[in-house]
């Protein structure tokens, strides 16, 4: 993961508003990229960290279409919608799709910047989580199939004796495997191990939005 600063992506068909908003965000200290349409944004966005501020009403692909396209691509980039006048059905649909925030174009600066900060924070959190998860996954990949099988049973809270009986190996062998696992995964306690296994999706349900990788 790069250490580049998060980028606020602004998408609006109104050039004037686009410039003004970008100006404010830059003056407030954010890195900003502007796009004149949803299509332009989708084509050029890269995978920089940050968030999206999009006009809800745009010719061609509108704000909701953009959000859906992002979801289809598996991007967790938070989207803040801006609208001239929020009507309830559109708002509901936007929020249901997971919009980070919903603001009118003339909303106070404080609300806007707070929304941007929240969105960036959420993105950072999501990205950190993903990074940690990826690292864990890499470590899990170093385990042998036998070690993985032992790990699953340990995570389920079974005793060494039970695991040995289950797998048809000696109890000593189980202990040897557990030592190897804790060394490879760099964990110290069984509790930590259990949490890790759950997070890595070795149990029945994995995290719902796990990115399939790039």
């Amino acid at each position, binding site marked *: 993961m790069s250490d580049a600063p998060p980028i606020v992506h602004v998408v609006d068909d109104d050039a004037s508003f686009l410039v*003004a*908003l970008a100006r*404010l965000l830059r*003056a407030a200290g954010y890195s900003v990229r502007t796009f004149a349409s949803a299509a332009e944004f989708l084509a050029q966005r890269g995978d920089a960290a940050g968030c999206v501020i999009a006009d809800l*009403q745009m*010719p061609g692909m*509108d704000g909701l279409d953009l959000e859906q396209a992002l979801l289809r691509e598996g991007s967790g980039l938070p989207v803040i919608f801006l609208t*001239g006048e929020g*009507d309830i059905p559109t708002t509901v649909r936007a929020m249901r799709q997971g919009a980070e925030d919903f603001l009118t174009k*003339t909303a106070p600066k404080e609300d806007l910047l707070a929304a941007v900060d929240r969105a960036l924070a959420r993105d950072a959190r999501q990205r950190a989580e993903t990074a940690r998860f990826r690292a864990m996954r890499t470590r899990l990949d170093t385990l042998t199939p036998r070690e993985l099988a032992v790990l699953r049973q340990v995570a389920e809270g079974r005793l060494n004796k039970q695991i040995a009986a289950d797998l048809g190996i000696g109890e000593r062998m189980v202990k040897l495997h557990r030592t190897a696992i804790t060394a490879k995964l760099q964990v110290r306690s069984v509790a930590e191990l259990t949490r890790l296994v759950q997070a890595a999706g070795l149990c029945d349900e994995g995290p719902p939005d796990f990115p399939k990788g790039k």
Partner: protein
Amino acid sequence: MNWITVTWPMVAAACLTLGLIELGIGLAQPPRAARLLFALSAFTVACIAGLELTLMQTDVLADWWRAMRLLDIAVGVMLLSLTAFIWVYFGTGRKSLALAVPVLYAIGLAFDYLPEAPPGSGMTFQRFIGFRTVETFGGASFRVAEGVSNPWNLFAYLAVLGLILFVADASLRLRRRGGRGRTALVGVTVAVFLALAGLQSALIEIGIINTPYMISWIYLAVLMAMASELNADVLVAARLAGQLRESERRMDLASAAANLGLWVWDIRRDSIWATRRARALFGLSDSEPITFPRFLSTLHPEDRDTVGRAVDQAFVGSGSLDVEYRLSLPDGQTRWIASRGQVECDTNGKPVLMRGVVVDISARRAAEVELHELRTELARASCVSMLGQLASALAHELSQPLGAILRNTEAAELFIERDPPDLDELRAILADIRHDDQRAVDVIERMRALLKRRHFAPQALSLSGEVLEPVIALAQSDASARQVRLEMQAAAALPAVMGDPVLLQQVLLNLVLNAMDAVADRPADRRRVRVCARRHGEREVEVAVTDSGPGIPADQIGRLFEPFFTTKQTGMGIGLSISRTLVEAHGGRIWAENNAGEGATFRFTLPLAGDAGPP
């Protein structure tokens, strides 16, 4: 006392009565000369009847002789007056014949006044012999003088013959000329009776028949024939007068029912006659004389020139007047009057008379004004509802510049905090703020123009610049929000049209919004609305709004423009009917048709500004 002494005075009395009646009428109304001559002859016949009675009763030669000579004079006067009457009344007699009558008679009459004539001699007898008494029916008796006939008496008969010829000739000529057939017939009757009278007195004088002189009787018949002719006119006049009164009563009734006032303007004397109703409309008393300036003074000051011009126009042009104007009544109220008239000219073509009607049209005017206000109100209401449909798009349209201004201002506040402040950036920000402010003003201006309440104010205008572009600009954001491709296509160098830009914008906006509704159910890439303007024939420009929707069901296409007819779930059905009213008020037409491919097209036409179309 016998029937003779009774009937002759009756004849005399009848003649006197006829004469007096005709004298009375003759003094008052034409044909005066004819009537006075008739009266004269009637009085003469009355005298003749009296003299005849004397002749029949006296046995004193001196009395008889005096009466006889008077009778000859009376007959002469009567012949003369009859001749003159026919001359005057028929107007077709021959002068030679007319002059022959008195000349011939005068020759005969001269024998009555020969010096040293023996008593009893004269025009009738050369020598008087004596009286004899004749018994006649009814036990009555009368005296007859006997004598030797005077051959010169022939001249008197020639005079009568001359008169007969004169009358007959005059009658025939009148008839040939196509004159009054009745008059000619009367002339013939007069001639026949004259002949009878001459014949009878001739037979008496020759001694062939023993009857009293009945000249007066026969002339009474002549007089009655003449009187019937003369007074036929009077009878006709009386009947006409009756019909006229009836007709006047009908006219009064009709004019009262229609609230019409009648007027006649004698232009040379500048005197206006007007019925009471007309006077009442203008607030004039029944007795006040009216002149044209006085009439003008009752008018609303602003309308005086208009009326003056309309009157001048009637004098020099069509000859007819048709003008509507206001009166300023003394109580400060205003009354609307329609005045229609026709000029009559003399033989030189100079206007001498104008007659016409006035009618109070205040109620109609008030209704028109009210209707116009209602229509304007309805048009405005429909406009408000259209803007309501656009509201969310318009709010978006406004929030763009307002949002941009706000962000720019906030950015400027941050820039100004820096040390040193970034002046270039601040300048750019201020320029952008100014630009966005203008954008916001434009949006508001467009809405305001549509909402402004105002009257129909046609002017020469550019369709694409003043109607199409503002409407497209207004509807564009709505089109974007609804993902409709809205295009405009105006022919280059489109000629100016006559119209009220705001009302035409309203018509077009309505059609565009309808078209966008029509394509709402199509897939997003097939929602198209196109507005085209092009010249249509020599005198019109056509605006077409074409959509790619499902088209109009054939059975509804004819009813689209009816009030309260709608194909939409939530429509009121007033938009298109108002559009039609507005387009027709501009002198144009509006209609709808289905396209060959998909969708429908609504078209309306407007007359070019060069053509002086309807207001």
